[in-house]
C-alpha cells in the first residue's frame, strides 16, 4: 500500500486540524451540508464528527443518487421490465421501493432485471441478446453520466436504449437553499463530481445565496482541511468557492467529459425523492439520440406514488433536516437487511452508512 494514502490519515495532523477547527468555529450553531455518499463514509468510518467543535454539525444532504431516485422513474423501470425488456441497472437500485414494486420484487415475479457495473456492461448484454430489447436504467450524478454519454455517442446496437434518471449537483444545492425551515451555513462540495464539473461550477450558488462552497477530497485529512476552510470563511464573513482537493479537481473540471455530456444530453427538470422537482437538475437524452431513449422508444410513463413510508424520516434526512438516529425506525425495524426507506437501501445513503459504520452525532 502506498504510504501516501495513509499520510492522509495521520493522527497528529488530525489533532492539529481539530485545534484549528475549534479556533475558527463561530460562537453560534453551524450547519455544513455535504452531498456525497463517499464523504459520509469517510466522516463516519473515521469518526470525524468527534473532531467537530461544539455547535458545528456536518450532515449528508441528497448525496446518494440511488436514494433520490423518484418513484416516478422507478415505476417506469419496473414497467419496462414487466413488459419484457432486459432491464440493466446498478445493484443498489434493486431494492429501492417504487409505488407498488421494487425492481427486485419485479424480478421475483419473472421480469428480467440484471445488475451491471457500467453502461458499457449493459451494451454488452444487448450485443449478446440481439433478439431482446435491453434498457439501461441510468442513475447517478455528473460522475456516472459521462459513461452513459460515451455509450450513446458510440453507436450502440439498435436493441439498446437508456432510461435516464441522471441528476446534476449544483441545482440541488440551490434547491436546498430555497427550502423553508432549513438553515444551511455552508456546503462541502463532492470531490468526484467536481473532477468533472470543476470547482467554478459552484460560483453561481455561492454568489446567489452568499454561502461558502468548499470542494473536498475523501481521506480524513482532506475532509478536515475542507471543513477548516469553510469555518475560516464563516469567521471572516466570506462566501466563496474554494478548492481543498487540488490534487484532483481543476477550476474548469474535465472539459472532455463535459463535452460528452452536452453532446448526448440536454438539461431538463428532474424529480428528486424527498425534495420534489428541481428545475434544470436532470439530464434528458438529446433528440438526435431519441432512438436510444427508452422513455420515447417505449412511451412508458411513471406515476407519482408515495415517496416515503409513514414514520420514515428519509425525506427529512435527504435534505439534511434530520440525522438517521432521529428516525424512530432506524436500526429497529429499518436495517440494511430489511430497509424501510431509500436512505437505508442505497449503500451511500446516510442511514445505511450510519448503520454499518456506527454513526452517531457525537460519541
Amino acid at each position: 500500500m502506498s504510504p501516501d494514502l495513509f499520510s492522509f490519515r495521520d493522527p497528529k495532523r488530525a489533532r492539529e486540524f481539530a485545534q484549528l477547527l475549534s479556533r475558527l468555529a463561530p460562537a453560534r450553531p453551524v450547519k455544513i451540508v455535504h452531498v456525497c455518499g463517499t464523504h459520509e463514509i469517510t466522516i463516519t468510518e473515521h469518526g470525524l464528527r468527534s473532531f467537530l467543535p461544539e455547535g458545528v454539525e456536518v450532515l449528508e444532504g441528497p448525496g446518494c443518487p440511488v436514494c433520490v431516485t423518484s418513484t416516478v422513474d422507478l415505476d417506469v423501470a419496473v414497467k419496462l421490465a414487466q413488459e419484457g425488456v432486459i432491464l440493466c441497472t446498478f445493484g443498489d437500485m434493486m431494492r429501492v421501493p417504487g409505488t407498488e414494486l421494487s425492481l427486485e420484487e419485479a424480478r421475483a415475479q419473472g421480469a428480467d432485471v440484471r445488475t451491471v457495473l457500467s453502461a458499457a456492461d449493459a451494451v454488452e448484454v444487448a450485443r449478446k441478446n440481439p433478439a431482446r430489447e435491453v434498457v439501461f436504467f441510468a442513475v447517478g450524478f455528473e460522475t456516472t453520466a459521462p459513461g452513459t454519454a460515451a455509450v450513446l455517442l458510440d453507436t450502440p446496437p439498435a436493441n439498446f436504449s437508456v432510461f435516464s434518471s441522471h441528476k446534476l449537483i449544483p441545482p440541488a444545492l440551490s434547491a436546498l437553499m430555497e427550502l423553508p425551515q432549513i438553515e444551511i451555513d455552508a456546503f462541502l462540495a463532492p470531490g468526484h463530481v467536481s473532477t468533472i464539473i470543476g470547482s467554478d461550477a459552484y460560483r453561481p450558488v455561492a454568489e446567489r445565496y452568499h454561502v461558502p462552497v468548499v470542494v473536498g477530497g475523501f481521506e480524513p485529512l482532506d475532509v478536515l482541511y475542507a471543513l477548516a476552510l469553510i469555518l475560516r470563511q464563516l469567521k471572516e464573513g466570506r462566501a466563496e468557492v474554494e478548492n481543498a482537493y487540488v490534487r484532483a479537481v481543476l477550476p474548469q473540471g474535465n472539459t472532455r467529459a463535459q463535452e460528452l455530456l452536452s453532446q448526448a444530453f440536454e438539461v431538463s427538470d428532474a424529480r428528486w425523492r424527498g425534495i420534489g422537482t428541481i428545475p434544470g437538475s436532470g439530464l434528458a437524452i438529446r433528440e438526435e439520440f431519441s432512438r436510444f431513449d427508452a422513455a420515447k422508444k417505449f412511451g412508458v410513463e411513471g406515476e407519482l406514488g408515495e415517496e416515503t413510508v409513514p414514520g420514515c424520516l428519509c425525506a427529512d434526512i435527504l435534505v439534511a433536516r434530520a440525522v438517521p438516529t432521529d428516525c424512530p425506525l432506524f436500526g429497529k425495524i429499518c436495517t440494511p437487511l430489511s430497509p424501510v426507506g431509500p436512505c437505508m437501501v442505497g449503500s451511500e445513503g446516510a442511514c445505511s452508512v450510519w448503520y454499518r459504520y456506527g454513526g452517531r452525532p457525537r460519541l
Partner: protein
Amino acid sequence: MSPKRLSEEHISALHGAGGELMGRLLSEHILPRFSLRSLGSIGLDALDDGAALKLPPGVPVITTDSHVVKPIFFPGGDIGRLAACGTANDLAVMGARPLAMTLGLIIEEGFPLSDLERILTSIAEVLEGLRVALVAGDTKVMGKGELDGIAINTTGIGVAARPIPDAGLSPGDVIIVTGPVGDHGFALLSAREDLSLESNLSSDVAAIWPLVARALEVGGVTAMKDPTRGGLAAALNEMARKSHVGIEVEEAKIPVRDEVRGLSELLGISPLEVACEGRAVIGVAPDRAAQVLSALREHPLGREAAIIGRAIERYPGKVILDTGVGGRRFLEMPLGDPVPRIC
C-alpha cells in the same frame, strides 16, 4: 476410463455404501493416518456404534462445526486443517484442553482420492500436534453435482478446569488479541479464481490451544472468543453484549498486516470484519494483563499479540472504536461476513 479405475482414484457411490469398498477406504486410507484412536475406552478401531470416553477431572466441554470452505486448498491450509483447528480452537477459547474429536465426511462422487488423502493428512497433523484422539467417524457420498466437492463436520470434546465464557468481561478488563487480524479471509479472497489478485498472504489457520494454555496458566482470564466469521468486530460485539459492558478499542493498536490493509483498501472490506482462524480475543483482569501478554508473546503463535482496548461501564453492549486518525465511532456487529464460504 473403466469403472474399476474410477473407484480406485476417485470417490464413488460405493465408498459410502457400507460394503467392501467403504471398508477398504476406512482401513487403508482413513484409520492408519491417525495414531490416537481412543480415549481410555471404546475407540475408532472397534468400529462400534459410538465411542466411549474416559475423561480426566474437570468440566467436559463439547463443540461441533461444519466446514464448506472454498477453495478446498488455499494458501496456508486446506479444509482438513481448518476443520480440525476450528473445532480444537472452539474448545480452547472455552478454556478446555482438546482431547477427542469425531470426523464426519460428506464427499461428492468423483472427488479425487488423492485430495481426500491430503485433507486427511492435514487433519491427522493437527490432531497429532495436540495429542487429540480421533474417536468416531462417518463417511457419506453424494451424487455428482449434489455437493461442491466435500463438506466436513467435526465434533470436539475437551475438559476445562474452569470454562471461560464470552460473557465474563467486567469494566476495567483488558482486551488482548493474539495476532494480526483478517489473514484468513483475505488469503481466501485472493486465492479465488474470479478475483485474479496476486498476493503472498497465507491463512493464519492454526491450533491455538498451546497459546491459550499459557494465558490460562498465568490466570486472570475472564472471557475468550475466537474471531472467526465476522472477524474481530463480531467477536468484540458478542463479548460486549453478553457481558453487558462497553468495549473501547484503539484501531491503531490492532495488529493488521500491510498486505491485508492493502487488500482491504482495494476491495473496500474492513480487516476488522474478516475471519481469522488462528487467533483469540482474550479479556484479562487488569492486574494480570501485562503478564498474560508477555506469556503469549513467548509463543510463536502469539509474537504479535497486543493489548487493543478495555471493557468500560459506559455504552453497555456496544464497541467504541478510537479510529486510527483519532476519531470515535461505534464498531458495529457486521451484517454478515463479507467473504462467503470461508470456513
